């Protein structure tokens, strides 16, 4: 067990990542932050709509979307991948609705059926293609991605400026798009998420916003997919908003806290992964979860203190 946890070496864990290995780590941190922040922003709305596990479903079912996109376009280009993921996301949502509406199966079971079947189809197609040697998606990559490869990508050069690895730029674009969409459609998203009845009476089409959110979800998940994998993308969707919801009641505060949590968990995660010599994406999620647990304990303790304080005068009175 000793060798499992290496001793905590201050220089190796804290100083070295920012001195000698700076060029390697900076992109990992930026990528981790962008993934967690973009997913987290979308995740806030999922949490409000009690659809956190639809995020889980979509992150799994984009696998067949990617394979089919590859089969159609014969190349693993960015646009093909995003198109495939988007289509797969829509199919998932439609399939969940179909099963739920057309039978008496409850929504939770419908979610489970839809995404596992699509995932199974994806795995079968993937292994069929692999056995012909024409295609390769690393099975591990599907599940936990490889964020460390980000810094190995050849950077995009524009007018002599080295902008950064292409996947980081894509994710940055998605993050900016998510922020812009939230700023522009803030009111609509707020009303449709909190009060569908009011939204309907104001003439907003709930279905349009629902599918729009699902499309945004599919986009950020496919952006996150290659760096953190399907299942850790779920963590990025759920954990930052849960942390934020634990500390703030109002939506603007939650959105800001989500971004803060993304930054903090990425940094902590990087050092954790250097210390323990483990998967960086996994460590980022572990760090994020620990932050949530800290917030959870903190609010529980505060609630207890408030209760004691409220009871204090009576106690004094009793003596």
């Amino acid at each position: 067990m000793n060798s499992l946890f290496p001793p905590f070496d201050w220089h190796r864990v804290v100083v070295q990542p920012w001195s000698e290995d700076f060029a390697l780590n900076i992109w990992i941190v930026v990528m981790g932050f962008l993934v967690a922040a973009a997913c987290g922003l979308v995740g806030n709305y999922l949490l409000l709509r009690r659809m956190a596990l639809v995020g889980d479903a979509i992150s799994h079912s984009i696998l067949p979307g990617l394979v089919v996109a590859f089969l159609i376009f014969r190349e693993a280009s960015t646009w093909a991948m995003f198109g495939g993921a988007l289509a797969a996301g829509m199919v998932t949502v439609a399939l969940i609705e179909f099963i739920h509406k057309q039978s008496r199966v409850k929504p939770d079971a419908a979610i489970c059926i839809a995404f596992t079947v699509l995932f199974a189809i994806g795995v079968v197609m993937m292994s069929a293609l692999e056995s012909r040697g024409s295609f390769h998606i690393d099975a591990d990559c599907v599940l936990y991605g490889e964020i460390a490869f980000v810094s190995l990508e050849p950077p995009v050069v524009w007018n002599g400026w080295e902008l950064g690895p292409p996947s980081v730029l894509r994710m940055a674009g998605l993050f900016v798009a998510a922020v812009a969409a939230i700023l522009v459609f803030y009111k609509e998203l707020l009303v449709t998420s909190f009060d569908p009845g009011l939204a309907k009476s104001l003439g907003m089409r709930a279905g349009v916003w629902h599918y729009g959110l699902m499309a945004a979800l599919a986009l950020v998940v496919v952006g996150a997919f290659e760096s953190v994998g399907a299942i850790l993308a779920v963590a990025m969707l759920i954990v930052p908003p849960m942390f934020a919801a634990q500390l703030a009641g109002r939506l603007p505060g939650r959105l800001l806290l989500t971004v803060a949590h993304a930054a903090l968990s990425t940094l902590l995660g990087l050092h954790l992964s250097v210390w323990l010599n483990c998967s960086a994406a996994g460590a980022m999620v572990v760090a994020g979860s620990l932050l949530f647990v800290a917030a959870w304990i903190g609010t529980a303790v505060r609630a207890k203190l408030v209760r004691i304080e409220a009871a204090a005068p009576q106690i004094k009175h009793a003596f």
Partner: protein
Amino acid sequence: MKVRRGIFLLGLLAVLLLAPEAAHAARINELTESTMGERAVRFFTFQDPSLRNALAGSMLLGICCGLMGAFLVVRKLALMGDALSHAVLPGVALGFLWNMTKDPVAIFIGATVVGLLGAGTVQLIRSTTKHKEDAALGFVLASFFAVGICLFTMIQNLPGGNKSGLDKFMFGQAASLSGGDVMLLAVVTILSLGVIVVFYKEYLLTSFDAGFARAIGLPVKIFHYSLMLMLAFAIVSSLQAVGVVLVSAMLVIPAAAAFLLTDRLGMMLLLSAIFGLCSGGAGAFFSFVGRNLPTGPFMVLAAAGLFAGALFFGPRHGIASRWWRQWSRSARIQRENALKAIYHELESGDFVTEHVALQALAERRRETLEEVRRQVAKLGAHRQASLSADGETVSLTPEGWQRACEIVRNHRLWELYLTNEAQVASDHVHEDAEIIEHVLGEASVLQLEKRLNYARRDPHGKLIPGLNDIRRGHAAVTGTRATGFGSSAS
């Protein structure tokens, strides 16, 4: 009792599947090059011990997941299976770390403990924060999984130990099941069968009406956690065969298919286990025939096929059956409307003749002659009317006459009821009666008649056909006129 016997048979099957294990607890030998047909033959002759392992394991897994899944589906905990199957990953890693081998028992214990910890965390988040169930499940799923990933990558960097095959827990490969794994599956299956049979009533009650169960003093929490424990057993022992993601599919899909087919928990458990068994067998077959394909996805696709079958063709809730019912109902209503039109035409001729011209019928219904011909042909197919030799007139058979009388009677009685009892204006009652005339049963018609004092005429002054007219058959055949109810003296 039938269900009990079925469950007993399943248990027996589990034992039988286990029997060859004692003799052939050998490791898998690699499949040699062979054609698909040869492999299919080999599959059904059960020559390979490794195949026997894989098949027995897959089928046992199907039974065990099917049983647990039935409870998940009726308790609306379907995603608990998903969450726990991801959450046990760190337990697998810890079990491996115990003595750095893939000892099934150590991994089983580690994963079960962590699985229960996950289930407990879900409850704790739900009870101490404002987060809803979906968020709690998602948190446990993702954060436990991340811990597992970290442990796995740390193990990869450790010196020594037989680390190969740990990734099998992700996607699963039934061919890599060892005799010990299958034994474990069998023990878990028989254990959960036994517990479910013994405590069937308690689980039934706590699943459907927890409040009542609590009121009569049942320890609901204990039953919940014992179910979670068995669920963790089922998940952990199935992981190697189907992998993390698809375990939840094997838990939910067969159970959901069974849920569509029956309303009784016992029957559902049985069907779910049978579906799981079939899809397990089918998954093992396909992954064996198509060489080196992962087993889990094929199992899931087989289960999905069963689910789709239940979804579309389930006798009561199936989509196709529902369409068929709707279609046959609207066809019946169309036929009855045609019969009614013939009756009206006969009535306008005072029942002197028994033949009605198709042309007159078309004018009455404001339809083309072709449409009327088609309707009459449909009536003919149901032996309710017959076309004359020249094809221009139609006459009702005794069955057709009876149904036509019933429809008109329903219609006019209802109109009368609405005007007399519900004070609806007499020119507003027709549309309502048009709808209800096809639905009223004999008992309610008799009640209506009594209520209306056996009235003879409807609000528009037309005679209401009575029971005598219906029994007598076609008025023209007997040479008497339809005179409405109360004319039994004639």
